[in-house]
């Protein structure tokens, strides 16, 4: 491997480590289990990072979306009993700010926060380095995350009300393995009172966490590709973002190296603009012919030839 390529990949690892520490830099919380309550929690990070983690310094955008949709945004919940009133309440409590913030990032760099900043994405990548048999998974699974975004982040928190007419963050409650890992386990360890109250829900979420950690050893970033609602939110922006990846098919020799390193198992020469790409740029760094570029307002020849990589290089059309 070329020295420059090694440096390129290393920079991303450093960025992932730095982002993990910056988003979870309240180390005092890790000693006593008391979460950070400072002003920075007004702000969301652009990645999936649980705000109940005792070390978390910022809010989680997926948590923030659910909380806003569920009506914690200053709406008088006692006045809302009918569906019509509920709909108008939702219209006024739509998470405009976090949607705008994420759309802004997506429109500039697409899904790059997933490739460079997200602690849970990074963890899946690290686990995948464990030498075990690797699999692709069905291409169909990638659609599940869009259903989770619509149903668990928006629809259920908006319409499934508890006895006090309030909504709940359904994705956080029933699915999020990042919450279990970053919030659930540290607090269960640090706070004996909380630990005593944990029941079937914690068991269920622990099962999901273990499942995804285990699957990460066999599949590349399974949670990102199949389940994560934030990945689902960013994904379509890859198609329109200002910065975009391009591949010069004239110079590509179909060596398959790019496909081999892609952390989301894309067949890179075919799918360079896939919604699943996390813009990690590992393919760009490793390409021996320099035929992959990432720049603003990339040119287009509107020629969509399909270049097949050599047999045996792996890869999955996503």
């Amino acid at each position, binding site marked *: 491997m070329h020295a420059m390529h090694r440096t390129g990949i290393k920079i991303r690892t450093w960025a992932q480590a730095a982002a993990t520490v910056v988003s979870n830099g309240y180390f005092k919380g890790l000693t006593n289990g008391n979460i950070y309550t400072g002003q920075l929690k007004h702000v969301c990070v652009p990645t999936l990072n649980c705000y*109940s983690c005792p070390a978390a310094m910022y809010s989680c955008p997926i948590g923030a979306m659910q909380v806003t949709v569920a009506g914690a945004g200053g709406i008088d919940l006692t006045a809302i009993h009918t569906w019509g009133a509920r709909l108008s309440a939702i219209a006024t409590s739509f998470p405009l*700010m976090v949607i705008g913030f994420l759309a802004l990032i997506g429109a500039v760099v697409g899904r790059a926060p997933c490739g460079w900043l997200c602690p849970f994405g990074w963890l899946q990548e690290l686990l995948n380095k464990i030498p075990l048999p690797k699999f692709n998974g069905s291409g169909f699974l990638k659609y599940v995350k869009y259903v989770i975004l619509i149903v668990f982040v928006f629809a259920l928190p908006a319409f499934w009300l508890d006895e006090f007419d309030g909504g709940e963050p359904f994705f956080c*409650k029933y699915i999020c393995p990042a919450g279990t890992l970053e919030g659930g386990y540290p607090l269960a360890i640090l706070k004996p009172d909380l630990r005593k109250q944990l029941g079937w829900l914690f068991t269920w979420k622990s099962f999901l966490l273990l499942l995804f950690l285990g699957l990460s050893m066999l599949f590349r970033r399974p949670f990102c590709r199949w389940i994560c609602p934030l990945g689902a939110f960013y994904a379509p922006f890859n198609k*329109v973002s200002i910065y975009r990846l391009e591949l010069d098919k004239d110079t590509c020799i179909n060596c398959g190296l790019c496909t081999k390193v892609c952390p989301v198992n894309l067949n890179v020469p075919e799918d360079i603009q896939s919604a699943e790409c996390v813009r990690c740029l590992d393919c760009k760094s490793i390409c021996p012919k320099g035929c992959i570029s990432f720049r603003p307002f990339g040119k287009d020849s509107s020629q969509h030839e399909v270049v097949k990589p050599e047999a045996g290089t792996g890869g999955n059309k996503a």
Partner: protein
Amino acid sequence: MKKTGNPVKWSAIIIIVLALILVFAGFKNGEHKSYFQKAILICTQCIGLG
């Protein structure tokens, strides 16, 4: 030079402008305060307490 990809789209610029408007509107609505209120208390749903 032949490249894969789509033509430059104004869509990105339009999305950026709309996104900025949304951020501003959300800010005026005080949306960040509701994140804050949720984020400074341990979220029982996040940690699996229910």
